């Protein structure tokens, strides 16, 4: 992972910092377009609120997420417990706010894992071509032959059910899609003059990929990764619902829904609100991703 840190910094510097300062750069214009998109901005604001809640959940919630209070068990929403309480009398609002941390972690970490290996494989396949490309592409085809949630399930079943393994599994299941995207993008730019020039002055292959190639395919990767976070949150919630990840009393949203089935007939609030939380989070990520795609699209088309 460490060798990618300078790469990431270079990508961020070239794409974000340089271009934000330069008012005529495509990235600057794209972010300007993004700022005008109502949907994307709503998504971004909700997401920022969620991130804030996730970081400071201990301080913003009135109760402790694992505080058992049998007297208050299965109370419907009220002034004291806005979203009701569960079978142990724990406050559901508190548990859902704490759950934001787990879900965002699953989304971000699994995309980081999937993106790391997917970008690596895709860049190598696209840049070197030939039999390297052939082998990696066949490997990707094989991974794509499994429906992604089943691939994730298979990985979890091998690694054993656990929250971190779940992130690895969801990450692995997104590797082929990342690799395909990056391979295509690298293929489309690798014949450009600046790559040829970099080769001519004797840059190493690694340097060409990291410094000259990746920054130039930053836009499609950013868009895809954002949308992939939404997919990963959903997949993570599904696997947690199946009991393949977090263990009680962790307040994970999918797990909360699984637990709600014990009180299905008596406590509608337990089955409703965690799902609403998942939906709001995923919608906001999707809105941001759609906005990013539209904002960057003219640039992609011009290439």
């Amino acid at each position: 992972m460490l060798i990618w840190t300078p790469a990431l910094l270079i990508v961020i510097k070239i794409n974000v910092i340089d271009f934000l300062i330069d008012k005529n750069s495509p990235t600057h214009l794209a972010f300007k377009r993004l700022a005008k998109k109502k949907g994307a901005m709503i998504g971004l604001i909700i997401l920022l609120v969620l991130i804030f809640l996730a970081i400071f959940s201990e301080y913003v919630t009135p109760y402790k997420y694992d505080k058992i209070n049998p007297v208050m068990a299965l109370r419907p929403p009220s002034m004291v417990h806005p979203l009701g309480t569960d079978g142990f009398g724990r406050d559901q609002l508190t548990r859902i706010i704490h759950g934001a941390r787990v879900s965002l972690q699953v989304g971000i970490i699994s995309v980081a894992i999937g993106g790391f290996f997917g970008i690596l494989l895709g860049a190598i396949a696209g840049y070197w071509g030939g039999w390297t490309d052939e082998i990696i592409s066949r490997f990707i085809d094989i991974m794509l032959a499994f429906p992604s949630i089943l691939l994730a399930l298979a990985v979890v079943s091998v690694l054993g059910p656990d929250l971190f393994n779940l992130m690895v599994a969801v990450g692995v299941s997104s590797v082929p899609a990342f690799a395909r995207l990056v391979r295509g993008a690298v293929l489309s730019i690798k014949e450009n003059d600046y790559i040829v020039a970099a080769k001519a002055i004797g840059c190493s292959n690694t340097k060409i990929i990291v410094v000259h190639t990746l920054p130039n395919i930053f836009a499609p990767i950013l868009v895809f990764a954002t949308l992939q976070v939404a997919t990963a949150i959903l997949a993570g919630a599904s696997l947690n619902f199946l009991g393949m990840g977090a263990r009680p009393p962790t307040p994970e949203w999918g797990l909360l829904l699984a637990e709600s089935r014990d009180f299905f007939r008596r406590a509608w609030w337990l089955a409703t609100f965690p799902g609403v939380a998942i939906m709001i989070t995923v919608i906001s990520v999707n809105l941001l991703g759609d906005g990013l795609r539209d904002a960057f699209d003219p640039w992609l088309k011009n290439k």
Partner: protein
Amino acid sequence: MIPVFIGVTLAVFLMLHALPGDPVLMMLTEHSGGAAPTVTGTISQEMYDNMREQLGLDKPLYIQYSKFVYDILRGDWGNSFRTQLPVSDMLLRNLPYTIKLALSSLGVAIVLGVILGVLAAIMRHTWVDSLTMTVAVTGVSMPNFWLGIMLLFIFSLSLRWIPAVPPADEWISLILPSIALGFSAAAIIARLVRSSLLEVLHQEYIRTARAKGLSEFFVIMKHALKNSLIPVVTVVGLQFGNLLGGTVIVETVFARPGLGMIMIEGIMEKDFPVVQGSVLFAAIAYMFANFIVDITYAYLDPRITYSDKN
């Protein structure tokens, strides 16, 4: 297709070897009723070796693999660690439920998706369009298991239209699960049909069709829709994989028998041949679905051929 088949079987085969722990000990654990044995403790070296030989684990990997593929092609998918029943029997017994669910949810997805997409496209910039697209964004962002729980709440518990646990053989048991499973695919299809149809409606042959006096209904149904469906077919093919995977989750929500149920049980009980079998089966089914998609392409667009004749 054959290289992918080899790769898929190899991947599933290697899963067993990637497991932490010794499969021989795992099997013996099941035999001895759950107490974890060790070679020197509860079981003798002889028993261990016998079991190892019986499972074929003493042979080199490539021989094990070729035997694995040979057995799969012959229809021998191994025996469950737990029940000792042949995995192929378990799969075949549960398969019809999963296929019915996957196909009916695919039906829900296509019908709902195309109708919503066409409506949104022909009523562009009206409230119908915005409502449909809002439903679509919500649909892709909704976890299918939660939608299933909500449907159970509304239609089984509150309205009492459909029993919460209907007999799995009756068609009524398919309604809620296939909506829960097909809804997000419907949302994806609706968005795609809308944008694809809007693109086609700008084409000149549509103007010609209108100019020669065809009714708007006929223009859309006969001329525009067929040509806008090609990108949709690809997505339907991809979505079929998601639906197949989604059955695992939706079957759990509705407590339906099926591939998903035995897979989840297999993972929970560490019954590995069952997990292997169901994962492999799903992958093969998905491969066939993609194959069918390729054929459908050629049918929808005669320009696409898969030979080098032109």
